[in-house]
């Protein structure tokens, strides 16, 4: 039983490499993969080092600030940079479309700026050359070229009847062909995996983490399933078509539809059904909420009037200058608490909208294996939307903590007596600046990735199981002649 499958796959493999076009295509793809790996590695190094350099500069400048009022430091703020995961050299995901740096300051949340796409003049829209791009887009194309005539050519040549007469079962034939194609594509895939492992280890300075190791293993497993799915599609399409030519046309239409049209259309539909606000609308909504809860800019605001009365009552004093702490800092801590709460609520809502838009692409994965592998690959290489949103969350948490630390310093160390118009401004020792730790982004563990991608993971398994089942039972519908 298994022997027959292996004989068929062995023949398919041999036949494939007898064809000059296959060899040429394989060599070209191999070169593209090599180039993509090199480029990904270079790109990672350039970007990573650039961000590291500025991260160090920012830290050093922060520490070197002289004595000053803590609120000045809250406004001086902190510039943080998005970290690249060492596996992102494999799949750029949305790296180029997501901003790189964000300026964190008191009372204000800024956007993540300076994405590579912002400096691009349109070429980026045609796609980016990464290992993932070659594996997701071009290897399936090779698989389709290898597989379009596997069955139909036998049928055209009349050998199909002979094979079946000799006692070969349909399922053996189909699985044998699939296995043969996969083994051809693996002559490409295995060297790439090995190279990836070496580069990944090099990029982690030979100190690989268990977590990245797990991510990489899952990545290899996912791509293996993806190639099997593609090979299965190719063989099935070939089996269901009378002529090789028609099979090739169908496969090419599928390829274009899967990789080019469907991703754009699903994303466009998602954005249409769940419209996201423009920045100006987003900010206006936050401002409206702020005014409802208390507008610190409005001198006659009832919330802050009540707030002041409460604190005076609590400390049994008749004027804020008699409080045992700096009232300005206390007031600002309250303002920061309110505004950050409102901002976070809106930001969460916005991210939910984005997630809803993206959910169409997840749902479409059940129709389109390309989207399934694309989403899973990005998630495993930490170049997906969820990781980006997580970076924003961690940066905002850092910003809030920084602002509140400065407010606390002001409460504890700044006198309630305001210096006169012509006197020296109040300040505290610069020794306090070092108390503020540097921003460190922590990548979420692989278990978080898995927990957050149930739809995507299921869709790959769904495709894999579906293809195996159809291969096993399709003989009922396939015509021999």
């Amino acid at each position, binding site marked *: 039983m298994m022997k027959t499958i292996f004989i068929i796959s062995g023949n398919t493999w041999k036949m494939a490499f007898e064809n000059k076009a296959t060899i040429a*295509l394989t060599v070209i793809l191999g070169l*593209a993969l090599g180039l993509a790996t090199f*480029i990904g590695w*270079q*790109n990672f190094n*350039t970007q990573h080092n*650039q961000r590291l350099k500025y991260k160090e*500069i*920012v830290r050093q*400048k922060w520490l070197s600030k002289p004595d000053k009022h803590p609120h000045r430091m809250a406004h001086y703020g902190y*510039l943080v*940079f998005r970290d690249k995961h060492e596996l992102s050299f494999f799949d750029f*995901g*949305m790296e180029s*479309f997501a901003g790189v*740096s964000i300026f964190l300051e008191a009372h204000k949340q800024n*956007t*993540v*700026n*300076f*994405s590579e796409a*912002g*400096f*691009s*003049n*349109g*070429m980026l829209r*045609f*796609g*980016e*050359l990464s290992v993932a*791009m070659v594996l997701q*887009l*071009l290897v399936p194309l090779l698989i389709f*070229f290898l597989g379009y*005539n596997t069955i139909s050519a036998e049928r055209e040549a009349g050998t199909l009847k002979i094979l079946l007469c000799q006692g070969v079962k349909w399922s053996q034939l189909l699985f044998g062909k699939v296995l043969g194609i996969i083994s051809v594509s693996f002559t490409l895939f295995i060297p790439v995996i090995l190279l990836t492992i070496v580069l990944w280890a090099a990029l982690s300075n030979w100190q690989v983490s268990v977590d990245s190791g797990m991510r990489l293993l899952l990545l290899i497993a996912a791509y293996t399933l993806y190639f099997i799915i593609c090979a299965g599609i190719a063989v099935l399409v070939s089996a269901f078509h009378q002529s*090789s*030519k028609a099979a090739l046309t169908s496969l*090419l239409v599928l390829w*274009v539809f899967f990789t*080019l049209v469907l991703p*754009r*259309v699903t*994303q*466009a539909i*998602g*954005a*249409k059904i769940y419209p*996201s606000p*423009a*920045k*100006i*609308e987003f900010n206006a909504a936050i401002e409206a909420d702020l005014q409802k809860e208390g507008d610190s*800019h409005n001198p006659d605001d009832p919330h802050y009037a009540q707030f002041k009365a409460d604190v005076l009552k609590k400390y049994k004093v008749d004027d804020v200058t008699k409080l045992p702490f700096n009232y300005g800092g206390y007031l600002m801590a309250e303002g920061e608490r309110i505004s950050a709460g409102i901002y976070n609520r809106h930001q969460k809502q916005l991210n939910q*909208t*984005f997630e809803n838009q993206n959910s169409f692409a997840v749902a479409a994965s059940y129709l389109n294996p390309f989207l399934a592998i694309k989403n899973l690959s990005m998630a495993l290489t930490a170049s997906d*939307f969820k990781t980006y949103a997580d970076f924003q969350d961690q940066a905002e948490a850092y910003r809030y903590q920084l602002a509140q630390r400065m407010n606390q310093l002001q409460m504890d160390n700044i006198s309630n007596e305001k210096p*006169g118009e*012509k006197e020296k*401004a109040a300040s505290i020792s610069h020794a306090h600046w070092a108390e503020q730790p540097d921003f460190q982004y922590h990548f979420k563990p692989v278990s978080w990735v898995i927990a957050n991608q149930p739809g995507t993971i299921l869709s790959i398994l769904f495709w894999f199981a579906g293809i195996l089942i159809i291969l096993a039972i399709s003989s009922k519908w396939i015509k021999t002649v």
Partner: protein
Amino acid sequence: MIKSIYQLEFKIFFSNKAARFGILILLISGFCSLYLGKQFIAKQKTVIEKAGKMQQEHTDKNVKYFGKDLGLLLYYNKFAMANIPDNWAAFANGQRDINPYLISVTMLGLEGQMYDTDLNNPSTLLMGNMDLAFVMIFLFPLVIIAFTYNVLSAEQESGIWGLIRSQSTLPMRIIWRKLTVRIIVVFAVFLILMISAAIYLSLAPDLRFILVSALISLYLIFWFSLSFWVISLGKSSSFNAVCLIAFWVALNIVSPAVLNVWLTQKYPVPEALENVVKQREGYHEKWDLDKSVTMDKFYKHYPQFKQYAFPEELTFSWYWYYAMQQMGDDDAAFSATRITEKLNQRQHFTHMTTLLLPGIETQSGLNQLAGSDLQAHTGFLQKLKAYHEKVRLFFYPLIFKEAKAENINWKQFRIEHYTDRKSEQVWQNLLSLIIFSIVPALSGIYNFKKRASLL
């Protein structure tokens, strides 16, 4: 006679299920993309309109709250500028999803504000927009390939070719006839979509319309020409199909991807991060320096403001504050210029390399004409700089004189519009596309002539 032969050819062509299917795909995706492209731009127009109203309301509120303190009022008050989308932007969305089309700035340091992005879903940016330009650049060639790859080989493979050759002295004429039918059909679909676009997107029938049509026509002819050349090699249908698809993948997917990475490596923009650091330091360090350091530099930049007395004895004054803000921009001026230079270098690199790739060539030509490319955006940023300077120069003396907010005519600061469009490079694109369409066709004719003499 000739008329009836063509009628027959059309009949044969349309009897093919794949042919009807191909036309249907182009029409459906064309209309869908028209709808999506227009929706995308319509949303931007709505936001710009809203922003205009909101700016007025904000200014009124700021005057009410902070009217007594003009320096403080201007700390909060925003001035917006919008890059108004052209009707053609719905045809070719270009970079309009990535680059902000509405930038609101205060009078503070501009360099810290002008690069702020809009709120975008990066997944949507990654997948890209669906506009008519996409359909024409990616899908039309595929249908052309599907229509033409077996024009000769199918006849050869079915054994009819020998018969045809024995009856006609000029087999090339038969190929021509078959190709003409396909060219006419594809261009009819193209025409239908262009007319629909003209009506649906209200595009004026002017020079730009002609240029866009010419660009796309040449691009489509290039694909026919390439197909013709592949056919002329006289190989099997499968070879032709694989070969043409390989061309399509290489020209429209792999080469641009390689070039783009090359470009990013060759012209990285670390200046962007440099710029943020410089601007931030340039302003903040002044708090800890002697006021004269800031003011001397400020007077050097703007000698005309020396006439206003500077309240040196005060710990804080708006005069000093805005001068400090200005220093942030001045200190970042070098890196800001470098960013612009880098972007221009990138632009130049793209122009030169796209001359070799018809797909990007057409895309960049369309984006240029639609004002949705990087150049349009950098132009927008330059205009924003000039506008910001104008606002600064208007308000600086008023702040220094401690003028009253109610005496200022705030109505003159409505949302600013940017509409300048440049498209000088389009002629280059046209010329290179003409060469692209001619060369394969000529070498195809040469192949046929050579083979005819051999046979």
